[in-house]
């Protein structure tokens, strides 16, 4: 019994090294999922981010039909990469609203002119307040909101072509 006890520190050490080695091989998961999924969209009212779009308020997201809310910014490079996928979703009849994070009106207008405009409404969030309300930790992120204003799905990062079916499925499921 006492002999066995002497080996205990070594056994603990070996276990520790094994745990570290296994964790090192796993790619780190840096996504921070929002805890607002399944909860009601918090109340907010945003000014329009550009002149030719309507402003966005939480009330616009509970009008009986599901919608996508795309959190983006003109200064965000992956947002440009996902623009074609948002346009494809729009062509499929998925309504999309935008929240422009820490952005200037002229920059948003330039972004839409260069990369396409999939948005119906765009709210300006100059201090990231709505982003914090949503539990969103970066740009771009896309939320599926059902017709009663409940957040159903969150996509973190740019929407790649292979992500489109998953988002369409989440949109259909929210109907």
């Amino acid at each position: 019994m006492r002999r066995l006890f002497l080996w205990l520190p070594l056994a603990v050490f070996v276990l520790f090294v094994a745990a570290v080695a296994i964790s090192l091989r796993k790619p780190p998961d840096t996504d921070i999922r929002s805890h607002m999924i399944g909860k009601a969209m918090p109340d907010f009212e945003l000014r329009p981010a550009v002149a030719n779009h309507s402003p966005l308020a939480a009330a616009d997201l509970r009008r009986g039909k599901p919608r996508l809310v795309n959190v983006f910014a003109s200064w965000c490079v992956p947002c440009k990469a996902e623009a074609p996928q948002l346009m494809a979703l729009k062509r499929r009849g998925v309504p999309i609203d935008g929240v422009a994070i820490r952005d200037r009106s002229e920059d948003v207008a330039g972004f839409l002119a260069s990369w396409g405009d999939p948005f119906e409404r765009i709210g300006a969030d100059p201090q990231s307040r709505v982003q914090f309300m949503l539990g969103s930790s970066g740009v771009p992120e896309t939320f599926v909101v059902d017709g009663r204003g409940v957040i159903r799905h969150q996509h973190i990062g740019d929407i790649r072509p292979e992500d489109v079916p998953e988002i369409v499925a989440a949109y259909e499921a929210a109907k």
Partner: protein
Amino acid sequence: MSRSVLVLIAMALTSPAFAQSSLPPSRYAYTQLEDPAQEARARALMETLRCLVCQGQSIADSDADMAGDMRALVRERVKAGEEPEAIRRWLIDRYGAWVSYRPPVEPLTWPLWAAPLLLLAAGLYLARGRFRRKRF
């Protein structure tokens, strides 16, 4: 000559991979609150909140735009009289316990909180013989 000029121009034109916005920072991102007691409370909270885009830094340490906006959020709410722990809870409700550097006491973290007590108990158990011998 022309090549070095080109290189200089290219260097001047690059922007960091994680571009930041061109908007000036929020009012309270880099400005302390007028009331030192409130600022101290806000500061203590900011040092225990994790920056979301620069993981591993507190929002007090980070120069990311988003950390600046989080500092502004904390300072404005403290200024409005909100308790720092209520602000922490508000953020945990949205981002999970991950956003806070102070781990909550819950089943998942029981080992974390129990470990010091268990180690102390084990230490006392091991040292017990020594204390006994000293008495002789």
